[in-house]
């Protein structure tokens, strides 16, 4: 399956990209597996803390990711 990844704030600066895609052979994996894969692909990614969203809804790392999902990796919010 293919998953779209979005990086925000300082994270897109560290990884050098705002958006990428990841392919995994399984049809369903926990978000934690996707994060592990991203840390391999982007060693510059800091250790967190991160906030995660799937299809614009905030989730925990145990959330199951499916084909076509949009996964956002976000640093702590700093609006206002």
């Amino acid at each position, binding site marked *: 399956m293919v998953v779209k990844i*979005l990086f925000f704030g300082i994270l897109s600066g560290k990884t050098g990209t705002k958006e990428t895609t990841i392919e995994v052979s399984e049809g369903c994996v926990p978000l934690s597996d996707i994060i592990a894969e991203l840390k391999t692909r982007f060693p510059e990614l800091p250790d967190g803390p991160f906030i995660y969203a799937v299809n614009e809804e905030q989730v925990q790392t145990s959330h199951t990711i499916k084909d076509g999902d949009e996964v956002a990796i976000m640093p702590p919010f*700093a609006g*206002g």
Partner: protein
Amino acid sequence: MTELVRIQEEDFCLEDEVKRLRAISNRVGSIVTFLGTARDFSDDKDVSAIEFEQYAGMAKKALSALREEANKRFDIIETSIIHRISTIKPGEQIVLIVVASEHRKAGFAACEWVIDTLKETAPIWKKEITPEGDSWVVPHP
């Protein structure tokens, strides 16, 4: 009709936003507003501008949920929330919360709750542009 929750590049007019909420009902006796503006100095650094980034779809949803939750949680009439996303210079407007209520106590509580919770739940980030370079703002705990 202009929406009560907006994320926009362009500036906004406090007077217009307040008038809109006042017009909702003659029961309005209290309007509490919070206006956040850009300072020229932050954590010992001169700041020449602030750049905002949002996760567009999710940020809009977060602010809409915040308005609904405020209207439910407090004894108020209506809430509006506007956040600008653009390069903002010192002295310029960033964010506006307006709360209309019958009585002021609920209005103050709701307005402060909305801006506090916005900072925790809205996927928005800011980068300070300083003479020594740019730096993403790490929120204070």
